[in-house]
């Protein structure tokens, strides 16, 4: 695929590089792995396949071969060959087609999966782009105009073969786009003006004063413009920690909410630093992090208090729903 316009921040992402946090290597990977898994399943890919993660403003891509694609996650005004591209569905695009992903109308991040995956080399077991240290993905950076995004060598054959399977043998037309009647759900899309995510009290929760502890769970927080894949800075009331004793740096986690000296919390996202010395007021339930990741700067979030048991139960419920969807999608491809 040739990149005509790169969009605001388009990177290659998969499920991340695991098992290297003792060397300071964060897993990283898709900000919304649920949407990534669905996109891959819609084109018959393995779960580990890499896709393009686009942010708020999507790229414009020209296809240099036939490709079976699916766009999942945030709603984008995507068009292919000038016609609206249906989201959450496998779509067969022909060689030469121009896919303009447009702007996000709901949510902020979408995943474009292509049958066969994005074929950049693996770095430390993953194709994910890690921008802070410039490795992984396409030369360790976001897409730029003029880039060629490598697809699997057999992407065109796979596209036609897989399309034939899901369309019950109905041959695709030689031009334009062909799709099916069924869609996948989009469980991580923000359902209103304000997203509610569950969070547990963090290790240093008790060190904050009573008003701050209350405010954290009662106030509505706004995602600041200087938020990125490393962390979401949250604007709201200043949180006070009366005895500001130094904390030796300690490991952090996806979804950790830490509060630096200025009193404004930061929710750690996919590319977060593996250790930190700021007090942790909360830990966001893993099941809810993908929904938080769908907020754009200016978006609002409220934290609902939960226990570790609740968080585990939320994760179990999400996994069950997701697995049943993934199974039915795999069934369409006869696998």
């Amino acid at each position, binding site marked *: 695929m040739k990149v005509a316009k790169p969009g605001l921040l388009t990177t290659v992402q998969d499920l991340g590089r695991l*098992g290297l*946090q003792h060397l*300071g290597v964060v897993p990283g990977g898709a900000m919304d792995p649920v949407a990534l898994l669905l996109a891959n399943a819609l084109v018959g890919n393995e779960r580990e396949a890499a896709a393009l993660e686009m942010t708020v403003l999507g790229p414009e891509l020209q296809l240099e071969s036939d490709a079976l694609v699916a766009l999942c996650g945030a709603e984008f005004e995507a068009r292919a060959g000038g016609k609206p591209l249906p989201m959450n569905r496998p779509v067969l695009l022909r060689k030469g087609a121009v896919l303009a992903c447009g702007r996000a109308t709901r949510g902020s991040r979408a995943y474009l999966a292509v049958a066969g995956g994005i074929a950049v080399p693996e770095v430390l077991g993953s194709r994910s782009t890690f921008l802070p*240290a410039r490795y992984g993905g396409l030369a360790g950076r976001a897409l730029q105009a003029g880039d060629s995004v490598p697809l699997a060598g057999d992407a065109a054959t796979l596209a036609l073969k897989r399309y034939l399977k899901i369309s019950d043998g109905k041959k695709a037309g030689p031009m334009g786009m062909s799709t099916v009647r069924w869609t996948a759900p989009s469980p991580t899309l923000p359902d209103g003006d304000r997203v509610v995510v569950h969070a547990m009290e963090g290790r240093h929760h008790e060190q904050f004063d009573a008003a701050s502890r209350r405010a954290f769970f009662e106030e509505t927080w706004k995602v600041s413009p200087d938020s990125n894949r490393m962390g979401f800075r949250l604007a709201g009331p200043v949180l006070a920690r009366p005895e500001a004793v130094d904390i030796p*740096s*300690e*490991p952090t986690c996806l979804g950790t909410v830490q509060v630096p000296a200025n009193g404004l919390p930061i929710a750690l996202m996919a590319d977060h630093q593996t250790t930190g010395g700021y007090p942790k007021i909360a830990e966001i339930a893993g099941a809810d992090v993908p929904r938080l990741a769908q907020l754009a700067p200016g978006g609002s979030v409220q934290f609902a208090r939960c226990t570790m048991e609740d968080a585990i139960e939320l994760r179990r419920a999400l*996994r069950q729903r997701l697995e049943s969807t993934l199974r039915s999608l795999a069934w369409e491809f006869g696998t």
Partner: protein
Amino acid sequence: MYAEFSQEIDLETNAALQALAAALRARSLPWIRDVIPALCGVAVHFDPDHPQLPESILEAFQVLLEEAFKQAGKYERTGRLVELPVCYDAEFGVDLADLGKTLSLSEKQIVERHSRNEHVVLMVGFSPGQPYIGGLDESLALPRRATPRTRVPAGSVAIANTQTAVYSYETPGGWHVIGRTPLALFKPERNPPSVFAPGDRVRFVPVSRAEFDRLKP
């Protein structure tokens, strides 16, 4: 999950928890993704979707820790010795002069005291390959700079409190910069990718500017 063993950085505690982490890692349990020896504790990241995930994770972690304690003796002091070339010239050691005034030491004395004894990697984290190194000569210990620098170049060797940090990437930083290593601390295509691993022993080897240039990739 994080098990904290002290609230202050202490070499003996850290050595014990390095051994504990090694014992945990040796179990290679399928539902555990990461075992991270940290400054004052051991963290474990688990795979929340793993089919073999125990019913009560906290209880399972407790049992694991107790078992690992019994095995830890085997893993004591297994760290390698890393000899890190450092150029302490004023060009790189931008805080040496100020530090000398505060500590009433000559720059030569600071370099000598930083490079004469063996240090130890207490934790690797923050950025890929970035070590937190303990064992700083007590006469060099002082708090961080009042105003952090907005950019500290990659390879900078800096001290604060009782530790040495080596910046693996350019980042903001508030430690006193005393030199720079020509080595790239983290290269994903190298095996192992990181110069430092937790528990490694470290010696800082002073090198000239010419030697620095020769070693710089």
